[in-house]
């Protein structure tokens, strides 16, 4: 469970969001909505523990978080498999790699260097990283931005499967293609 109490943040005196209080229980899918520059990425980073809020408190009993930001953490000079092996070793289990590759249908690009991949394929590699992770919470920042309709369906299936097993998914998106239990509007 994650509980936010009176969460507020500003950057250089410009208020982004204030007094957000909400409890997110297991199996919840939470969508963060708001205009450009409203603070969605900042809120997600705060939830992921990357950034510290100016005021307010976050209570959580879950340490492990898998995060995909705007920049999807892909090193161009490494192969897709090298990426997955690294993240599996850090956050999950290497044994999950073959199943994750099959689910995301990236068998053809597994030995390719990431500089040769399209934006959509890079996004798929980043999503595959979620599958090899053991994290209970997924935090996704506009992760559907470069995906086509087929891959959106794959992502939708993944989110539903994750939350049906007691996981929590928190994401921001400008589209209406992904499911959610409730939305938090900021800005």
């Amino acid at each position, binding site marked *: 469970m994650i509980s936010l109490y009176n969460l507020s943040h500003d950057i*250089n005196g410009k208020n982004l969001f204030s007094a957000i209080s909400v409890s997110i229980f297991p199996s919840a899918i939470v969508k963060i909505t708001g205009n450009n520059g409203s603070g969605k990425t900042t809120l997600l980073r705060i939830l992921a523990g990357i950034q*510290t809020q100016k005021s307010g408190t976050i209570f959580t009993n879950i340490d492990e978080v898998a*995060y995909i930001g705007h*920049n*999807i953490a892909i*090193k161009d*000079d*490494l192969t897709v498999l090298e990426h997955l092996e690294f993240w599996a070793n*850090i956050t999950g289990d290497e044994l999950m790699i073959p199943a994750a590759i099959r689910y995301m249908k990236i068998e053809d690009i597994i030995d390719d260097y990431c500089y040769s991949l399209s934006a959509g394929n890079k996004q798929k590699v980043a999503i595959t990283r979620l599958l090899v992770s053991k994290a209970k919470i997924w935090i996704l920042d506009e992760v559907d931005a470069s995906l086509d309709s087929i891959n959106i369906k794959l992502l939708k299936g993944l989110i539903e499967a994750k939350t049906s097993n007691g996981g929590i998914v928190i994401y921001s998106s400008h589209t209406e293609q992904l499911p959610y239990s409730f939305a938090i509007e900021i800005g």
Partner: protein
Amino acid sequence: MKILYKLLKFELLVYNRSYHLIRNNIYALLLSSVVFSIAMPGDVMTNYIKMLMCFWGVVFSSLTIPHYLIKSDLQDGFLETLLCSASPIKIVVSKYLALTLSLIISMLISIGFMVLFFSFSNKETLYLLLLMTLAILQIAAFILLGNIVHSYFRSNTNLLIALILPLVIPTLIIGASALETLRFDFVMILLGIDMVTIPTTFFLSSYLLSNLYDF
């Protein structure tokens, strides 16, 4: 420890696949030795001068390491993703060890050529190796700190790096004195400097890294 080992392996892979740290450092080291040898008149080329050229060559070639190693992690989103799974101190230590290992490997390869070229005795070679290793341990720490400062501060970062790098000057001076006398006291002084600078750098770097996104 497992995460630290995996991080170190990954950093070594990235540093040498993307930036060719070991290869470029060997080139810089050999080039600096050749340039020094050409520049020095033949009659002043004592063994002390030759060892000094090799030692300073290691220091100066290490300073050619790019200062955007961490900035690139910041830009491609790698750092924020990693901060969710590993503590800042583990990230700092793994980056430091990867830098140190890359520098030591390139130094070990280059010193073979230097010993052949300059005909050092075994004692001189071992002494030189010890001094170079101690210098590398310290320089890697300063390079890491420079890299993190370059990422943490959004402006005037080149000026800040220019203020950090002169911290190697005491090592240059003590190293030169050590090579002149071949006394063990100077090695202990360098070791003492390392023992002060390395933990301080770890502490400062991990503090900056943990606050990298707080602006």
